[in-house]
């Protein structure tokens, strides 16, 4: 009876879901295949004239409005001659440039260019004058001394970025962003170029090895979340106090209401 009832030709209620899942897997897979294909081509040769030419075209189309056709700067944006490839790779590679609007500081947003285009822009600007270069891989791979990095971070960085890299407020609406998902390359570039309100930490201030240690520490914090459980944003006592008042005491008060509900 049951069996014949089931074969009514109607689709199983989960059929739509299964179909959707299948479709998503295919689309996602295809997308991943295509995007890894493009990533393979993303290596731009820093020395080739073609890279620099491409970068110049991109620059003139996307950046020249504020920075000038020859990157000499205008009243809306500073000169980029001599800022180096590191600066461009950081600003464009984290989506801060091109800037969405004038404000206290450039905000992070989705990256507007492919990796290849970012590199082309970077090498074009680097070709205009000497400046800090994009760091080599061994400096940003997180293979240094985390303990030394942590100490340096507390002394040099924590006053703005917070000891756990949770970020912090500065004056007049400016802020030090959280470092919880910044890549090693971008951390290094930020230290050598001093973007937005950040000071420059040159190699005499903090040696490249020490920078590597700092990155190692930040990578450690990024990869090893708190041993104590959920971190509540790593914001310290404010988040903890808010939590105990809203959730801790909230739950307990709800229970007191429940305990005394019957007799009333």
């Amino acid at each position, binding site marked *: 009876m049951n069996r014949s009832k089931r074969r009514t030709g109607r689709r199983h209620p989960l059929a739509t879901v299964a179909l959707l899942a299948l479709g998503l897997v295919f689309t996602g897979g295809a997308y991943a295949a295509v995007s890894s294909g493009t990533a393979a081509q993303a290596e731009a040769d820093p020395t080739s004239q073609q890279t620099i030419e491409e970068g110049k075209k991109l620059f003139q189309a996307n950046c020249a409005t504020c920075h000038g056709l020859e990157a000499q700067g205008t009243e809306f944006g500073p000169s980029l001659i001599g800022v180096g490839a590191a600066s461009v790779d950081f600003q464009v590679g984290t989506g801060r440039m091109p800037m969405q609007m004038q404000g206290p500081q450039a905000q992070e947003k989705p990256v507007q260019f492919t990796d290849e285009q970012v590199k082309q822009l970077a090498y074009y600007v680097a070709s205009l004058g000497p400046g800090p270069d994009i760091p080599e891989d061994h400096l940003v791979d997180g293979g240094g001394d985390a*303990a030394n990095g*942590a100490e340096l971070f*507390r002394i040099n960085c924590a006053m703005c970025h917070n000891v756990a890299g949770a970020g912090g407020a500065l004056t007049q609406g400016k802020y030090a962003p959280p470092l919880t998902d910044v890549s090693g390359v971008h951390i290094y570039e930020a230290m050598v170029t001093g973007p937005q309100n950040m000071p420059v930490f040159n190699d005499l201030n903090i040696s490249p090895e020490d920078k590597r240690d700092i990155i190692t520490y930040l990578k450690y914090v990024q990869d090893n979340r708190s*041993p104590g459980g959920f*971190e509540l944003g790593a*914001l310290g006592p404010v988040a903890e*106090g808010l939590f105990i008042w809203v959730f801790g005491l909230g739950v307990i008060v709800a229970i*007191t209401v429940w*305990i*005394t509900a019957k007799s009333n």
Partner: protein
Amino acid sequence: MSTATSPNGTQQKPSFTTAASVYVNERTSVAGFVKELGRKAFPDHWSFLLGEVALFAFVVVLITGTFLTFFFQASMAEVHYDGSYVPLKGVEMSVAMASTLDISFDVRGGLFVRQMHHWAALLFIAGIGLHMLRVFFTGAFRKPRELNWVIGFVMFILAMGEGFTGYSLPDDLLSGNGLRIIDGMIKGMPLIGTWTSFLLFGGEFPGTAIVGRLYTLHILLLPALLVALVALHLVFVVVHKHTQYAAPGKTQLNAVGPPILPTYAAKAGGFFFIVFGVLALIASLFTVNPIWNYGPYDPSPVSAGTQPDWYIGFADGALRLIPPGWEFVWLDRTWSFNILVPLIALGGFIVAAMLYPFIEAWVTGDKREHHIADRPRNNPTRTAIGAAGVTFYAGLWAAASSDILATHFSLTMEGVIHALQATVVIGPFIAYFIAKRVCIALQKKDREIVLHGYESGRIVKLPGGEFIEVHQPLDEYDRWKLVSYESYQPLMLRPNARGKITVGQRVRAAVSRWFFEDRIAPVTKRELEAAHSSHHDAAELEAAPSSQH
């Protein structure tokens, strides 16, 4: 008490419980005490359990704290950390910090107990805070309970001291910054400041003595005082009886509720385990005070987002809200009014709150005992004063997180500070006004409901064509709650026996006028009868609507 004799004359062996209780009673005479205490009635209302929340959290703090003392070493001797936490390996730190890290990473269950201790401490003081608000807004501090309010208030201050000394013990960067602020506040006091600071720290800040001293305060002196005061507080609760909310059968002379034994004791005992369980759950799921992030104390770094635990936040906020430039040199000394003003303002606030029961008693001149707790709306001025105090405190409290407010709501730090300065200075007046008006409006609504009943939503057309809404009369039990409260009249100035009006009397009359000028008197019996007789036609109409057609 004696062994039972069965009908056929043979003696039955007494049960173990009987034998044991007889044994104990014959040696301690405890039966009378148990009988007396066990039959005490405890009125049942959720808000009466808030003090228990604090008490139970305190018990959890004591239990977990004892565990922590087995492993914590209160020494500021310097060592190189050699435990399991990689980003601190080899870093120089005090033994206190290293042993706290060992508790966190190398003692089995240590991190769980440490987190439970800290979370329980946060809940303990939050519980006290909410309990105090309940007592304040229901007027449960009135005679005979004024002294118990003061005892509770002293415990609140001691608990803050416990919290502060406790979170300063690990000697991590955050707590060191907190100690530095306290050191600065002490040094900001004229004449005695520097001496006091050197006395406390055993020399120049930070020295090598402070952790050991705080430890003695934290595990010996303050807990001993707290336990003694908790006991005294509870003795007073028994002596005074618990307050209760107005309801039929509840008077100033009785306390209506389940007896302590067995009902209430079982409930409270169960509730202890619930609080314990909630704290255990929180401690196992949520990080608190991750000192491994903060690193060892070093006077040079200060992290962004450095805040004290929530209960010290109002003091930190007060310091943050003082505008720049409030210090000057006079008589070859620096006068730090940026520190003195917050100290005086907060000290004044705390003393005023502690003495409030006496102030109100003086204003009302009421010498009677009060065992029926007020509904907050029925004493509009007190409730408004409370609302103003809460606003003042909350403004300071929020100021302690001004930087986090700025980053998380995309605001400027200066904007947040100015807004909070306004909140702290003007906010209390606005809150006072709004709270008072809301209370009076609610009283008017109550009065309306008592006199004319609930709006039933039923529209009836009268023969004349008029539409009226039928009001449902209130039943007696609900009415009781709405009419049984007291409304004081402003004090009338009268000459005393010597025919004089003293200045004190004038002040008292002025304050009394401010307190009780705007008031809604409870509905009297006569008013009620008058209202009911005038509603007769409506009631008749409802009773026999068909005859009207």
